[in-house]
């Protein structure tokens, strides 16, 4: 039988994804035709494509509706995350352009893979079906595995990639198993249909319990929540710093986007089972992530643990969403958005200190930066304040909305754990600030500024401060986009 072609309007609703995919394929071809010392030009092309998609998505948010028979949902929720991913991708390109030269890995595939990963994320956020979400997840993951191991001569990079790949493949399997069980229980992979099918089931059904646990574990690995975090520090440390920045912001946000959609829509009928699980995972992530971060001497590892704890804070919003859906989800979404700028910012600062033959990631390398490069040190303070949730930065508003959601939905203990651990977090961030301002430099830190990196950092700093002082616009956008969640 003939398969009817989808109407043009539905195809057009996915134009950013299509644009990015085509551009990525084209870049692989152009790469072959580009001479070795002109590879950075591909990066500029990549940036142009991403910015085009970003501006287009902002100007013409897709009309709400499900497309391709429910495979994709073009709603505010998806649009919000797509904007987030595109911003992250654009910033990643900006901070990569010079850095790849410094690391000697300036190659065209890098940018193509970045685009593929971004497309995968956009599918995850817009997926209305287990299949499309899973495909997006795999597209994103496979691209990221390669990007993590991009510094082939470096053992740490390779090790990180292998660890990430093995754990990632394993957990994709677990997730898939859970989704398959859900399909078995409900006879559908469509999120709304699954929810409908589950609502008739008893919560004692062992298959349902097992499926829920498997899906929690699968997504738990993807967002690196404790106790499923062990791959993260090694991977974050080994990966090229620009990719670490990309992973801690965009990849984490994508996992969160898929997670929230799957649990809040499809698995909502079994909320009683998973709410407890996510509660525990959130608490453990906040506690362990922050406590272990204190002991790190490598800034990259420290930030990796801090990134684990931040997944915990965002999870508070998801847990709260079981009682107060809009407030909770809005908290999680806003948190991921503001976290993006601060976390990418801190990693970009590491790039600023990386130059040919010298990879700076020991905290001690920052000694004396406050005197030798006061502006850079000052920018660092702003990012750290935001990560620690201290006003007037964006991180404070992020924590505020998340804790508010927790208190309003009655999860007071989780909020208490949240604030107590954020005080612990301030300790290790300020230890770095102490090193920068109050310790004498052993080796004078050298900066390798470049124009794209400066632009990227500028955007991140301004966003971190502006979102702290004037969060109204984004808060409204977030509130609108969770209302449209189908």
């Amino acid at each position, binding site marked *: 039988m003939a398969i009817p072609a989808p109407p043009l309007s539905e195809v057009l609703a996915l134009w950013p994804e299509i644009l990015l995919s085509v551009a990525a394929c084209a870049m692989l071809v152009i790469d072959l035709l580009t001479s070795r010392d002109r590879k950075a030009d591909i990066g500029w092309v990549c940036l142009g494509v991403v910015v085009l998609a970003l501006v287009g998505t902002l100007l013409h948010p897709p009309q709400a509706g499900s497309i391709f028979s429910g495979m994709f949902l073009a709603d505010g929720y998806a649009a919000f995350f797509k904007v987030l991913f595109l911003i992250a991708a654009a910033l990643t390109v900006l901070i990569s352009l010079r850095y790849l030269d410094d690391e000697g890995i300036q190659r065209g595939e890098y940018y193509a893979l970045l685009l593929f990963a971004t497309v995968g994320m956009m599918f995850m956020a817009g997926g209305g079906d287990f299949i499309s979400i899973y495909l997006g997840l795999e597209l994103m993951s496979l691209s990221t595995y390669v990007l993590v191991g991009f510094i082939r001569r470096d053992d740490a990079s390779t090790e990180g990639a292998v660890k990430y790949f093995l754990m990632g493949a394993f957990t994709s399997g677990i997730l898939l198993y859970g989704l398959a069980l859900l399909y078995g229980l409900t006879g559908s992979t469509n999120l709304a249909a699954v929810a409908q099918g589950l609502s008739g089931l008893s919560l004692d059904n062992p298959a349902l319990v097992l499926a829920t646990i498997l899906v929690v574990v699968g997504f738990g690995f993807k967002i690196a929540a404790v106790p499923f975090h062990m791959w993260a520090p090694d991977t974050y440390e080994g990966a090229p710093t620009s990719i670490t920045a990309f992973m801690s912001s965009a990849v984490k946000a994508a996992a969160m986007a898929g997670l929230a959609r799957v649990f809040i829509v499809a698995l909502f009928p079994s909320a009683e089972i998973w709410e407890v699980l996510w509660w525990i995972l959130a608490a453990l992530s906040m506690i362990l992530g922050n406590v272990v971060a204190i002991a790190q001497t490598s800034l990259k590892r420290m930030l990796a643990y801090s990134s684990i704890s931040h997944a915990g804070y965002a999870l508070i919003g998801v847990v709260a969403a079981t009682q107060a859906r809009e407030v909770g989800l809005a908290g999680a979404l806003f948190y991921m958005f503001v976290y993006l700028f601060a976390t990418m910012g801190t990693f970009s600062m590491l790039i600023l200190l990386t130059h040919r033959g010298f990879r700076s990631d020991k905290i001690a390398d920052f000694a004396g930066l406050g*005197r030798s490069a*006061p502006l850079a040190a000052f920018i660092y*303070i702003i990012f750290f*304040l935001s990560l620690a949730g*201290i*006003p*007037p930065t964006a991180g*404070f508003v992020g924590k*505020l*909305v998340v*804790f*508010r959601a927790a*208190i*309003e939905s009655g999860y*007071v203990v989780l*909020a*208490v754990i949240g*604030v*107590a651990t*954020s*005080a612990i977090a*301030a*300790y290790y961030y*300020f*230890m770095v600030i*102490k090193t920068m*301002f*109050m310790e004498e430099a052993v080796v004078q830190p050298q900066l390798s500024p470049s124009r794209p990196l400066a632009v990227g950092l500028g955007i991140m700093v301004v966003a971190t401060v502006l979102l702290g002082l*004037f*969060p*109204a616009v984004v*808060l*409204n956008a977030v*509130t609108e986009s969770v209302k449209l969640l189908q």
Partner: protein
Amino acid sequence: MEYILAHADYLLPHPDGVTPLLTFIIFLPLLGALATLVIPKTELRLMKAVAVFCTVVTFLLSLVALSNFDGSTHKMQLAEYHSWIPSIGVAYFLGVDGLSILLVLLTTLLSILVVVCSFNAIHGMQKAYYSCLLFLETGMLGVFLALDFFLFYIFWEIMLVPMYFLIGIWGHGRKLYSAIKFFLYTLFGSVFMLLGILALYSFNSTGDYGTGELTFNIIELINNVRVPTEPIFVGLSSQDLIFLALFLGFAIKVPMFPFHTWLPDAHTDAPTAGSVVLAGVLLKMGTYGFVRFSLPLLPTASHNMVGFMATLAIIGILYGALVAMAQRDMKRLIAYSSVSHMGFLMLGIFALNPEGVTGGVIQMINHGISTGALFLLVGIIYERRYTREIAAFSGLATTVPIFAVFFAITMFSSIGLPGLNGFVGEFLILVGMFKTNVAYATLAVLGIILGAAYMLWLYQRTMFGEATTPENQTMKDMNFREIGYMLPLVILMFWIGLYPRPYLNLMRPTVDHYVTQMQERHAAERYDPQRATRQASHDDEADADVPAEDR
């Protein structure tokens, strides 16, 4: 503007209706901080001039605020209101009343003094130093003037950062340890305070306990939110729990025993300016928080907690005084004396009557003046000798007579000698406490005696006797600049001591209003198990109508 006019029963705008005077007061120092940052490193004189100019103009502006201040009303005056983040109910909302006007003046005055006292004391990174001081001033003023919890919290937290750098970079001794200890202690308290604030916010947003609106507006929360007093957790009510959350934030700042351990370290290791600001203003933010927020928002919990608060306060008074006696370092001695004095202040506030609260508020000013002055004096000695060991000094009265006179006056002010400022506050606090609980008041009197003992002993050891060592014989007396910045404080000590009425009159309507309002609310919402069951069975809505004689 429309907002202020619509709420004229508790808000008054600036007389001319447009001048954002309080905004100028808060942000002028910030402007100065930014200006110092762009001045080239070598232009030290210009940098200092900018810092002095900004602090002086801010002080003058605060005097303008005082001249526009109507002392006959409890209303919030010079109010400014602008919507800021409407979706979560945040507004840019400032105002000043009898509780805060004196604290603002104290802050702007001390800020000038700390800038002037640093001219010769600070070496290295001066640019950053002066901009930290100015930045700090903005934070402190913001805390006293903000009437929106979101805004308040921003100022409350933002201040930690410059203070951290002041101690960590320009401090002495174990400065890194003290700086981070100060930072973490305060931050830890603040985040729990934030939870308390969010809980109040949530209660207000439910129709049952408030207006159902989302708002961080402090005045509206005070007017509308009624936190339930039924026990929900180990015998504590929601109101008690919120009280404890706010308590953590404020008590660490005050600091009350047993949260005081950051204070001796921070005060001792901070540069003189840091110690003055810490003792003079930062500690007051804790006590201000109790009066401004805990009492009116949580009246029943405040009553329930009187015993708890008074016990901690008295332990603080006695323990602080005893430990002060044992100190060998002058700054540490003064630091512990602060623990003792702040305990006194808390005792006054939790007498929960007009005398006690008035005493508490005026004592905030007094403690700021006298302890600030003591730290400035120790700073003067330290600049000459680079030591603060009490044992290193003797017979200074003969070598530095002017210094000795200033020191004597300040010491007596700190002890609470009649005729000087400290006496007024202590007297009112004791009157208030005797009305509430004679036993507490009696124990507190012990603290005064101990206070006299350690201060007099300090004076005796350093000023009297013979100047034996060559350093003690040749020490230089205070110069004009130093006399200049000490003089205003000494004048205030006498002024408040001999003629406190104008100061007390400024705060009286506000304090009376706060105390009466709290007592009325407490009477209305006292939890009575029998009434609760009665209500449950009859679903009687008239819960505010329980007569006050019911107690």
